[in-house]
Each structure stands twice: as C-alpha cells, then as structure tokens.
C-alpha cells in the first residue's frame, strides 16, 4: 500500500549537514561570521568552514562552558559566533554560562546543537537530550529554532546569521527525507502551514514534521482531513497561526522529539488555554529517558512516529464537541 503523500522526497540527508552547508555559506556572505566547536567538528559538519576560514574558527577542545563564554566575548567584539556541539552539551552542561553571559547579556551568539533527541540513536540516553527546547525557551531573549530537514536547516542557519540576538538552533544526526524546497525563505517566528485541513491540526517540529506529513496521508485515507503546520520556531511562537488554525479545526496534536514536559506542546497548550480552549493531544516523550537503538526503533518504542500521530489525532477528534 502506498500513501498519497502531499510532500515527497528523492533524497535523504542529515539536518546537521544542512547546518554545515548553511554555516559555510553564511561565512562566505559575512566576514564577521566565526565558528567554534568543542572537539566535534566532524560530527557538526563544521570542517568545510574551518578549512576555508581557518582564522575565523576556534577549536575549544572538550570544554563547552569556556566555548560559550568565548562566544559571548567574540559577540562583544562585533563577531557573529556559531558555537557547535551536541545538543546535550550545548544546553544542560552550560546552562548557567548561556543564561548569564549570553541570554541575560543579550549577546549575538548562535548556539548550534546537533544530535538532539532520540534519533541520535545508538549512543543512548546520555547523549539523547529531550529537555533542551524547554530549557532554552525559558530563557528571556532567547530565540529557539528546530528545523525539519536538510533544506530547512540550511535556510534557518542563513537566517540566524542575519538576525541580531541569541539563538538556539537544534538539529540532528540521522539521514532524513528532504521534503521541503531548497529555495525556501526562512522566516524566524513564522509558522509554515504545509497542508490545509479542516478536522484537526498537527503542529509538528523538527524530524517529526516528516512523520506528520505521513500521518496526514494516513488520516486522509480514513476520511480525516488534517492541517499540518511546521513550527520551526519554538520561540517566539507564532500564536496567531496556531489560533487561526485551531479556530478552524477545533482540535490539535503537537508532535516533537522532546519531553512532553516543557516542550512545544506545552507552549501550544499555554496559547490555547488563554485564548481558545480546545482539545490538544501530545506526541512526545512521556517523562522518561531514551536508550540505545536505531532512530526508527526508538521513534516507535517511545511513541513518536506517524502511527502515534494518527492515534493522537483520533483522540483529539473524539474529544471535540
């Protein structure tokens, strides 16, 4: 059985490569763009930039706290630092450094976080951070972005280079369908309605936008028309787009590769409860750590794949009066 997907792909690629290619392009466009990495240049795909601009790239060794502080200093000196490491080490490990030297001090630092979420895979829970969006969105001044595929990650990387202010950019390790256009314009804070629907809205972010696209086709086969909205910017949240859609569909599902506590779903719930109460079902990790496995196995076991989005959509529909 083949699904009638509204978006398809011919190629898969990791979102971290979208970051790496966007970073190189940003470096070519603006000589103030500089890079830092804590001994993960290969994993973050920052090597091409380092090769082309060796004087604008700083290896910090395995010392993330120092990397964040140096980034703040480079920003003071007028540079646009992109500091890269795994999402786990880019957030929890250095929360206080980000809080004081970057967010509170309002520095133009781009925290570039790879290998986020369960789809990191076999390395297991020590590296599978599922709390980073929550931590980052709580920080005043911080912009939080979680793009969905290679093309969107590349576009987001270019967009944050031009935006003045602290940004947390989250991406991942696995090879993933490239289903958004290469020439897209990335607007920070502007949700993207990818599929029109009338029965239920699926708000998805990161890798799970693809799962939402698959879920939409599955639901359509059963006569349920879901609207799919790509929330690439977790903060500032496009509350206008969220309310407009839910006022039409009357119920919603949030889908993210993150803890339910403190994630995108919580931000959406917060918006709905204040402005337009409506049933909302969460697809996310339910208060647990991950484990080793392949990305596909993990998304299935922890309830984050298209089938789970379909089930959640039906639950939301059933609650609709």
């Amino acid at each position, binding site marked *: 059985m083949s699904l009638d997907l509204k978006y398809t792909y011919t190629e898969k690629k990791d979102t971290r490569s979208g970051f790496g290619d966007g970073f190189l392009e940003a470096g070519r466009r603006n000589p103030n763009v500089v890079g830092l990495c804590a001994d993960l240049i290969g994993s973050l795909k920052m090597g091409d930039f380092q090769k082309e601009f060796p004087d604008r790239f700083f290896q910090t060794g395995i010392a993330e706290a120092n990397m964040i502080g140096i980034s703040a200093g480079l920003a003071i000196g007028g540079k646009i630092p992109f500091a890269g490491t795994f999402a786990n080490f880019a957030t929890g490990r250095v929360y206080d450094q980000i809080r004081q*030297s970057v967010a509170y001090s309002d520095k133009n630092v781009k925290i570039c976080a790879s290998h986020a979420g369960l789809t990191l895979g076999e390395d297991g829970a020590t590296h599978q951070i599922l709390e980073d969006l929550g931590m980052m969105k709580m920080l005043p001044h911080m912009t939080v972005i979680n793009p969905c595929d290679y093309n969107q990650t590349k576009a987001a990387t270019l967009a944050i280079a031009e935006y003045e202010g602290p940004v947390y950019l989250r991406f991942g390790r696995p090879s993933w369908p490239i289903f958004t256009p290469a020439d897209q314009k990335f607007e920070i804070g502007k949700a993207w309605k990818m599929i029109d629907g009338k029965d239920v809205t699926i708000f998805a972010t990161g890798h799970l936008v693809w799962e939402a696209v698959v879920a939409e086709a599955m639901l359509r086969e059963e006569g349920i028309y879901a609207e799919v909205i790509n929330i690439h910017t977790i903060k500032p949240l496009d509350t206008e787009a969220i309310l407009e859609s839910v006022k039409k569909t009357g119920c919603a599902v949030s889908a993210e590769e993150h803890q339910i506590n403190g994630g995108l779903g919580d931000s959406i719930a917060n918006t709905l409860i204040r402005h337009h109460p409506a049933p909302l079902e969460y697809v996310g990790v339910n208060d647990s750590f991950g484990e080793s496995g392949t990305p596909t196995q993990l998304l299935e076991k922890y309830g984050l794949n298209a089938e789970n989005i379909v089930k959640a959509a039906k639950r939301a529909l059933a609650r609709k009066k």
Partner: protein
Amino acid sequence: MEKQSIEQLQKICTQLRRDVLRMVHAVQSGHPGAPLGCAEFFVALYFDQLRHDPNFKMDGKGEDVFFLSNGHLSAGWYSVLSRSGYFPVAEMKTFRKLNSRLQGHPATHEHLPGIRVASGSLGQGLSVALGVAQAKKIDKDDKLVYVMMGDGELQEGQVWEAAMYAAHHKVDNLIATVDYNGQQIDGPTEKIMDLLNLKAKWEAFGWEVNEIKEGNDMKSVLEGLEKAKSLTGKGKPVLNLLYTEMGFGVDFMVGTHKWHGSPPNDEQLAKALGQLEETLGDY
C-alpha cells in the same frame, strides 16, 4: 586623560573606598571587603593604564577593555567607572535599588556604560575576555583585554578550561589579574579549598605569571601593571597575581573574610569613614 601623580591616584582610592562603604551601607547589602582591597588596582587601571574612552562603545574596538569576572565587587567597579566619567557620580545613590542601572551584580540590559557582560555567577569572565581578545586579533586591533578574577573564583572549573585555551591559542593580548587576598565568603581559601601554589599552577598551564606583591601600594601596582603590559605580545597570556588584603583601608575590616558580604551598620560606617578622607566629594 592626563596622567595623575601617585598622590592624586591614592586620593582617588580613598574616595573609592568611601563610595563602596556608603553604597553597601545605604542598602544594607553588598560586598565591601574585596573592593576595598582592590581600590589601588581599580584606580591604577582606570586612571593610568587603560587606553579607553568613557564615551562607552560596547565593542571596545580600538580601546583597552576590562571585565570584572568576580562581579560581586560591583560597588568598587561602579565607583571607579563613575569617577572616571562613564556615568554621573550621583547615580551611585541607586546602587542595588529598584529600577537602577547599578544592579547588585554587573549587568548589561540596563545599559550602564562600562559594562559589557553580566557577571556574578563566577568563573565566566576569563572566557568572555578571551573571546574579545580573539576578536581584536581578527580585527588587527592592537589594544589589550583585561580581566579580574577572585582567588576563590579559581575553584570554578571553567577558569581552567579558559586557562588551557588561552595558552594553546597564544592569546597574548590578554592580561588577567587574580585578586589574591586569600579570603572567600566562608573563610580563608586555605581552609575552604586550598589553592596551593597558584604561581606554579598558572605557569604549568602555559601562562606568564607576574607577581605584584604589594597590591595595596599604588607605586607597586602601577609598576606591576606596566610590567604586565610589557609581557604581552610574546605568545603567552599574562597573569597578575595581585596580593591584596581584603578590607584594606579600614583598620577593623582588613585581613578577614568577615566583611566579604556584610555591610557596616551606622556606627561602623562612621568609624570607617573617619579613616578615609573625602577627597573628591561624596556622591
């Protein structure tokens, strides 16, 4: 700024000490001990050493810049900044009060001239200073970056990440200073967490260490800072070990951790001010 004589600089130190004590007394909170001990350093830096412009520019391009990593010395820093023209002296009246630019610990979002990054949570300033120093290198800006840390602050791991980085990347346009007063809030450093041989530690991390043994003597501080400047540009980061006495200048406050984070009461303030001549006019 015209060069001032040692006597003139000493007079500014006395006023700085008065400012510090009056500020923390007024709100009955803050940290008087360490800024009293660092008065000579602050004044030597801002009134003699720094090539800077009180018409503050955040990026500090073409200027020497200073960071206070041990942000709890804020009262001392605010005094020297206002006394050297960064903002009106009268603004010291707002220290630690609601809607003030003079936050308990230094902050930027109120746009107080002279402050480039928030500090207070310890251990972060050296890293920030390194970033500015490297931005200067990229821009071929030959001015220097200064940063001060507390000795107790060296217990933070991030300091040693930064220390390793600075030597590896040959950040030789940076002068860090450790306020080596041997005291921290819970007691003497040797009892709380012994720093052992700091000179050997920093040297082992690849730094040029410059000891300033008389950190409360203006002539000695000026000579020490001049020497530090002469050590820059030679491939190594430079560290001043500045031997000071916490609470210096007030006989009942000197040499103890007791005044690290405690303000004087009315009587203690009067007694302390009696030992410190009002040289530039109180705010």
